[in-house]
């Protein structure tokens, strides 16, 4: 028996899940936005503040050494968690958004030329579009959108057909935060590699749900964000092939990213520190280390299995609701569901569901181009995690029915 089979015990480790909202028990279905944190993470953060609070990499005293070993320990844990080859490949960032900007500024920008292309899918989060647009605008390069299908799946052949000698990078989300689609990233990575085009995979929505193995994927860059992985916000990583990190110039200057500074010339530290300017979010990364330990103890495979089950239960439930239209019908999907409801606006549904204790997100989910593709300004999104239950799905369905009666 896996620990996850005792779901009440698992839930008891997440203090937030016991909250009462407007007199109702919280049903937290906004996990794709940010995940709740287990006690172990909260305790690691406050333990650092009350016991070991010191700065990293700078002081030889006990507190400094404790803080450094906790912080660097998180890097080691993350390295193992995603199957990276070495700790030098793990650059700790504020999150996915910063990771992608780092690649845009340091990897692409110095050599981008007019007419160069950056190929991304039409189902990317803004964070995997706008950084490319910024460096493209500066250099005359172009951001090219790869097509998706009416099911909300990647048009794999369409994307591969767009790869050409001007393509300087292929960016693709592992799992779509708006549609739940799990993309066949290995096919795209291999197709790009065959054409010597580097790949960046946005793993924000994948890492919390199943085991990642970046070495086997063989992508050039894999990015993720800690807060969806049950750790504090303001933490994340860029996992990159060492050769790229060695070749890339630094992005931001200052703090521990240097080796020696003078007004005549400055030399830089080795990766990953070269890309970690200033004092990092130490408590946050200590929390990320604790989150990974916690996930390892529960087991990513057990988590994935439970989420697959919850996904299927939720999918059947949604199919039975008249007037509810699911957006995206990918065959490979996570437990993330976007939908619209006849005669009811997404924001009204979300606010009124909240009155029933149900937290969902409404809006464009930072994916305007995906919404444009489906001709919608906004959807309601319910996104589940392993700690959710079938009873919560039933409560959600009942609350939605009540909300629709109110708005009718």
């Amino acid at each position, binding site marked *: 028996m896996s620990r996850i089979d005792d779901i009440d015990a698992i839930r008891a480790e997440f203090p937030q899940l016991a909250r009462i909202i*407007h007199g109702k028990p919280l049903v937290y279905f906004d996990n794709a936005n940010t995940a709740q944190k287990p006690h172990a993470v909260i305790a690691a953060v406050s333990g650092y503040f009350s016991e070991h609070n010191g700065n990293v990499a700078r002081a030889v005293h006990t507190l400094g050494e404790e803080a450094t070993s906790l912080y660097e320990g998180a890097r080691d844990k993350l390295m193992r968690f995603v199957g990276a080859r070495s700790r030098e490949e793990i650059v700790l960032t504020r999150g996915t958004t910063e990771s992608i900007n780092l690649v845009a500024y340091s990897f692409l920008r110095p050599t981008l030329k007019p007419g160069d292309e950056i190929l991304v899918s039409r189902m990317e989060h803004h964070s995997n579009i706008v950084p490319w647009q910024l460096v493209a605008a500066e250099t005359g390069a172009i951001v090219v959108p790869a097509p998706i299908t009416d099911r909300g799946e990647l048009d794999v052949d369409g994307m591969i057909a767009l790869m050409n000698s001007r393509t300087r990078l292929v960016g693709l989300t592992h799992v779509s935060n708006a549609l739940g689609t799990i993309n066949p990233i290995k096919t795209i990575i291999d197709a790009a590699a065959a054409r010597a085009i580097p790949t960046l995979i946005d793993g924000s929505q994948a890492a919390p749900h199943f085991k990642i193995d970046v070495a086997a994927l063989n992508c050039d860059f894999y990015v993720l964000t800690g807060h969806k992985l049950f750790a504090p916000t303001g933490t994340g990583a860029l996992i990159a092939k060492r050769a790229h990190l060695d070749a890339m110039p630094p992005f931001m200057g200052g703090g521990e990213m240097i080796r020696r500074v003078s007004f005549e010339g400055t030399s830089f530290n080795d990766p990953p520190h070269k890309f970690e300017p200033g004092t990092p979010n130490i408590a946050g990364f200590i929390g990320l280390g604790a989150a990974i330990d916690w996930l390892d103890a529960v087991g990513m495979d057990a988590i994935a299995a439970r989420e697959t089950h919850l996904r299927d239960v939720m999918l059947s439930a949604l199919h039975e609701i008249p007037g509810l239209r699911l957006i995206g019908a990918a065959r490979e999907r996570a437990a993330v569901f976007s939908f619209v409801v006849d005669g009811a*606006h997404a*924001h*009204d549904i979300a606010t009124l569901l909240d009155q029933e204790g149900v937290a969902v997100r409404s*809006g464009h989910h930072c994916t305007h181009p995906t919404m444009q593709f489906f001709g919608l*300004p*906004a959807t309601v999104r319910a996104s589940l995690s392993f700690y959710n239950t079938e009873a919560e799905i039933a409560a959600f369905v009942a609350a939605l029915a009540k909300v629709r009666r*109110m708005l009718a």
Partner: protein
Amino acid sequence: MSAHPSTLYSETVLAHNRAPKNCGSLVDATHHGVAENAMCGDHLKLSFRVHGNVIAAAMFDGDSCAITTASASMLTEALRGASPARIAELREEMLMMFRAGPLARDDFAAFADLCHHPARQRCALLPFDAAIAALQTKE
């Protein structure tokens, strides 16, 4: 901050949403304005006709959430017979209400609970912003 039961979707708001006043397009409008809510992509058009220094009629159009629709319905009602300068005053009163709670005499008291829903305040302000845009873009 406390998760008190909300009064946002009051009968007043729901009724305006079900049967909004002044919804459609205004013939002979002298002013047209549009505003957009970045959070949900809603667009709202608002037009009015000014005679002398008085708004003779105002109408709105758009596929919006209940809060925006009810606010537009009430605003277009409130504007009829008012001077154009009233738009900015009403918007200011709404903002004060978000900060400080319902004002003594306020047509828009139905939105008082928005002080507990900062993320939805923009929905109620959208018609005001469209009206202010209309003041600037005279046809």
